[in-house]
Structures are given as structure tokens and as C-alpha cells.
């Protein structure tokens, strides 16, 4: 089953006959008309939440894994759908078309364009563009790349990846919605996180407890001091995060540490304590 087919099934769940008709006409149009349709989409397509079935979900996952699109609106879905029809054999022309859309895009168009990154042709070409969204201060634009989008994990360099994650943490975004968070964890990021936490603590501010999930595999002396500090924090979720890190890491002093907290150890073993509980 093709991506176009899966998308069309999704659209049928949520679009009226009239909306579907407009889309079908546009998918058969020339490149300039297709690009114009991308821009004009909200004039013809509603902006409401889409309906997604288990069948849709699994069909989509077969083609593009880890792409949670259930929070999309119909106009966003239809815009990405239209882009799937853009003729891509001529690389120069294709890239020029997409770049023009980016360069003249309004807010919702940017969201749709960045959402489409996982399925655009010539994926390696869009890395710089994607990092521009990470630099953006427009919340919805940043979110379109950072959260629920498998493109960064697949294509970002380690430095670009770490910027994305750190900026999410800095802006109190829910990092568990970053696709590939655990797979792309790295020593540099864990060390940066320690520095970041020290700055926040010095300012009398908090660090969201779930961010410590990023350090378990990269334990060293400095980080272990942080974990000990979390254990003695008066904030319960900080203690829970410290316990979870201790249980995950391959660092002998930590296991001895956790020995002092048998209740935590049991809670983790029973599944009563997990990172999911700290997600917010």
C-alpha cells in the first residue's frame, strides 16, 4: 500500500465529499497549480482534528515508523498529502518548488512543510532547513520538527540533535514526544544536561525530572553527583528520577546507592515507578 493511499484513507475519515473533490482535482493539476493549492488549502479544507483508526495507524507505521500524526488537523494532513503529488524526478525543480513554499510560507504552511519532512524526496537536502525550525522562536514551527517527527533522529548530526533536545528542555517541552530520544542519547548531551541543571539550580529554578532519563547510559563522576543531589532533593519526582537512573545505569556506586532505597527498587521492579509517570 502506498503512502498516498494511506493518506487518502485518513482524509476520507475526516473530510466532506466537497473537500475530497477539491483535493482530487488538485492532485491531478500541474506543478504551479499544486503549489497554489498547498497555499490555498484552508480556503477549501477545514481545520479540525482528524480521525485515525487502528488500521490507519498500522498501515502508516509500516511505511513511516514512529510518525504520530493523530494530533494533526485536517488542513495539515491535506497539505502534506498534496506535497506527495509533487513531481520529484527533476531534483532541481523539485527542490526549487519546496524552497519557494518555505520562503513565502505563513505560520500554518510552515507547520505543514516541516511536518512533511519525513516524506519529502531527497531527504538529505532538508537538514539545514530543519535546523532552521529548531532555531525558530515560533512555537508551532519548532514543535512541528521537534515533536512527533522522525526526521531529526534520522538525519541530524549529533550537534544538531543535541541542540534540538536541549532547546526542548530549556523551553519545558515534553521531551518524551521527541522521536528517537533514547536511541540518540549520547555522552555530550548527558554532559550538557548536567551543566544546564547546575545553571538552573543556581538560579533557584527546577529541572523537569524526566530529562534525567538521558544520562543513565553515560554515567560519570559529575553526573553521579547530580543523581545523588536528586536523591536528597525534597521534590519527590526528583527522587523518583534518581531512582530510575540508578536502576538503569551500569555504574557500581549507583547500585550501592539504590540499596539504601529498597522501596524505590521494588517500585521499579513492579512497574509502579517508570519514566512514563514523570512525563509531562
Amino acid at each position, binding site marked *: 500500500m502506498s503512502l498516498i493511499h494511506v493518506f487518502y484513507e485518513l482524509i476520507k475519515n475526516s473530510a466532506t465529499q466537497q473537500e475530497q473533490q477539491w483535493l482530487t482535482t488538485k492532485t491531478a493539476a500541474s506543478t504551479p497549480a499544486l503549489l*497554489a493549492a498547498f*497555499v*490555498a488549502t*484552508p*480556503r477549501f479544507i477545514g*481545520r*479540525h*482534528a482528524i480521525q485515525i483508526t487502528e488500521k490507519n495507524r498500522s498501515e502508516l507505521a509500516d511505511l513511516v515508523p514512529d510518525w504520530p500524526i493523530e*494530533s*494533526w*488537523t485536517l488542513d*495539515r494532513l491535506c497539505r502534506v498529502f498534496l506535497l506527495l503529488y509533487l513531481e520529484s524526478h527533476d531534483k532541481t525543480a523539485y527542490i526549487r518548488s519546496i524552497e519557494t513554499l518555505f*520562503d*513565502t*510560507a*505563513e*505560520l*500554518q*504552511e*510552515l*507547520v505543514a512543510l516541516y511536518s512533511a519532512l519525513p516524506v519529502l524526496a531527497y531527504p538529505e537536502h532538508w537538514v539545514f532547513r530543519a535546523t532552521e525550525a529548531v532555531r525558530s*522562536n*515560533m*512555537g*508551532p*514551527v519548532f*514543535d512541528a520538527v521537534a*515533536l512527533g517527527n522522525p526526521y531529526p533522529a534520522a538525519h541530524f548530526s549529533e550537534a544538531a540533535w543535541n541542540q534540538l533536545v536541549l532547546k526542548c528542555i530549556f*523551553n*519545558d*517541552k*515534553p521531551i518524551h*514526544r521527541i522521536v528517537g530520544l533514547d536511541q540518540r542519547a549520547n555522552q555530550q548531551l548527558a554532559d550538557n544536561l548536567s551543566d544546564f541543571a547546575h545553571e538552573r539550580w543556581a538560579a533557584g529554578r527546577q529541572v523537569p525530572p524526566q530529562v534525567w532519563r538521558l544520562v543513565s547510559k553515560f554515567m560519570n563522576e559529575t553526573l553521579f553527583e547530580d543523581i545523588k543531589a536528586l536523591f536528597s532533593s525534597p521534590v519527590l519526582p526528583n527522587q523518583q528520577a534518581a531512582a530510575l537512573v540508578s536502576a538503569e545505569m551500569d555504574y557500581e556506586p549507583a547500585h550501592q546507592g539504590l540499596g539504601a532505597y529498597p522501596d524505590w527498587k521494588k517500585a521499579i521492579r513492579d512497574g509502579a515507578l517508570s519514566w512514563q509517570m514523570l512525563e*509531562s
Partner: protein
Amino acid sequence: MTDTLPLNPSHAADSLPTSVEAEQGQPDFRSYIKGMTFFDPHVHMTSRTTDDYQAMADAGIVALIEPAFWLGQPRTGLATFKDYYSSLVGWERFRSSQFGIKHYCTIGLNSREANNEALAEQVMEILPLFLYKEGVVGVGEIGFDDQTAAEEKYYRLQLELAKEANLPVQIHTPHRNKKLGTERSMAIALEHGLDPSMVIVDHNNEETVKSVLNQGFWTAFTIYPFTKMGNERMVEVVRQYGPERIMVNSAADWGISDPLAVPKTAALMHLKGIPEAHIRLVTYQNAIDAFARSGQINTADFTDVLPIDQSQTFNGNTVLRGGQQPRIDKNDLIIR
């Protein structure tokens, strides 16, 4: 340069003590407009601070229109026009949304920069890329400044663009030779076959209002200290001509201006006995009716408290709602 305006004969006759009170005692104007909502159809937010957005939201402004204009010095290349238009539909739209204010814009080549013909030609080519964007509610602000031949040329070309896109036109009338410039702007619009109900003639005063209304155009007034209308004069205009097809805006920009001009004028109208229904028309509804002809205004976007875009709610996570900014107490000595 200031307009040549006659002294307003009527406000002195008003016996209500409130204008004096407003000058001396500074009562909070917000107390007179509690629960009212406002639409400012002309304000250049690009030139304003984020504090202004906060104050506007607090005063009841729920939506606004930012016309494309002159940035205070001439642009030297096409790219800066493109980035400017782009910011009106991108960054500024987002900045506004953080305060729960729906941001619309009008897109056009302003009259001053129409005089750089080489650049104006290039700008004309990219205008259609932006005119069809979501939330672009008109072609504007366009019209005359010096009233040169080049200004007329690009004014006419943009009227044709508006016709083709079926978008309203927001006309800037000149500071100098205002009466003549206003008449000329209207005559040319009619010559191009535009329906006056699709044209908003802006920056009117006591001298131009009658003719603009009589010819069937939307008649906008800018409350802007020293050079345009004062709000006491505005009250008398509404008293004399009624609320039909009249709208008030601030045109606040990088000059000495007031982004709260619309709610303040509503408060003054209330104090001076203008009926509530009339206040609502000139500070909210007429602007919506005029610019909704673009098909780009969905009032639910600013009458519903919560954003309707589900993609921004993220399972109720307020941080990601793309919504309200955290409040800080401006009077507090301590900054945390």
C-alpha cells in the same frame, strides 16, 4: 507634516465633566468598557513591543489587522520586502497569538516606495505569492503619499490585483492635500470598477467623512495624536454621522501613537453617551464586516477562548498550547 484640521467646534459644548476628569485624574478607562471586545483594523505591530500586545489584550482587543507599510526608511532590495511580508504572516502572527489576539494582515506596496519604480516592479511580481495566504484580508495599505505619477501607477495595478483576488482594499489617504488625495483615490477605485463596499478609505477626518460616506465606501478614522484624529473629535463624528460604515483604528506604529486608541475611544464614547450598540459597530463589528469580504475572517477564532487548532493543544499540555504567555507583575521591583 500634520494635517490641516479645523478646530472641532462641538466638543467644547459637551457638558460632561469626564473629559476633564480623563485629563486630570486618569481614571482607568478600562472600567468603562468592561466585558467589551475590540477589533483594531489598522495597527503596525511590527513596530510595537510585546508589552503592547499584553496591554491590548487586557483592554479587550481580540483581533487586529496589520497593513503592510513603510518601515521608516526606504528598503533597498526585493528580499527585504519578501521577508517583511513573510513576517506579517509568520512571526508577527505567532507573537500575537501568544496573547490570544488573532492577527490578520493586508499586503501591498506602500505609496512612498512605489516611487522607486525599479524596485516596485519586482515587488509587484511577488505580491500574488502573499495575497492568497490564509489570514490576508485585503490589499493594503495602498494609495497616495506625494501623489506622483508612479504612486498612481502602482495604486491602479494593485487595485486590479485586489479585484482579481476578490480582496478588499485598504486605502491610505495622504497627509498633505488630503481632501484632494482622498477624492482622487476614490475616483480611481470606482474607475477600476471596484465596489465601494470592498474599499476601506482610511485616515479620514471631519473634512473628508461626508464625501466618503456618501459615495458608499467604508470610512475609517485613525486615532493618532498630533497628526490624525483625536478621540474627542471622533466621538462627535459618530454623534453626527451615526455608526454605519464607520470604523476606528489606532494605526499605532513607530511614531508617537497609542495601541490602545480603539478601546480608549470606546470608553470615551461610553462616557459621552454614545449608545453601546453604536460603539460596538465602530470599534468592532464594522471592521469585521468590511474585511470579512475577504473570506478570511472566522470570528470563532477570536470569540472562542481556547484555540481551536487541536495540533496546538497537545493533550492539554499548556506549555505547548501556543497560547498565553506567563504574566509578570510590572510593578514588582523583583524580577525572577
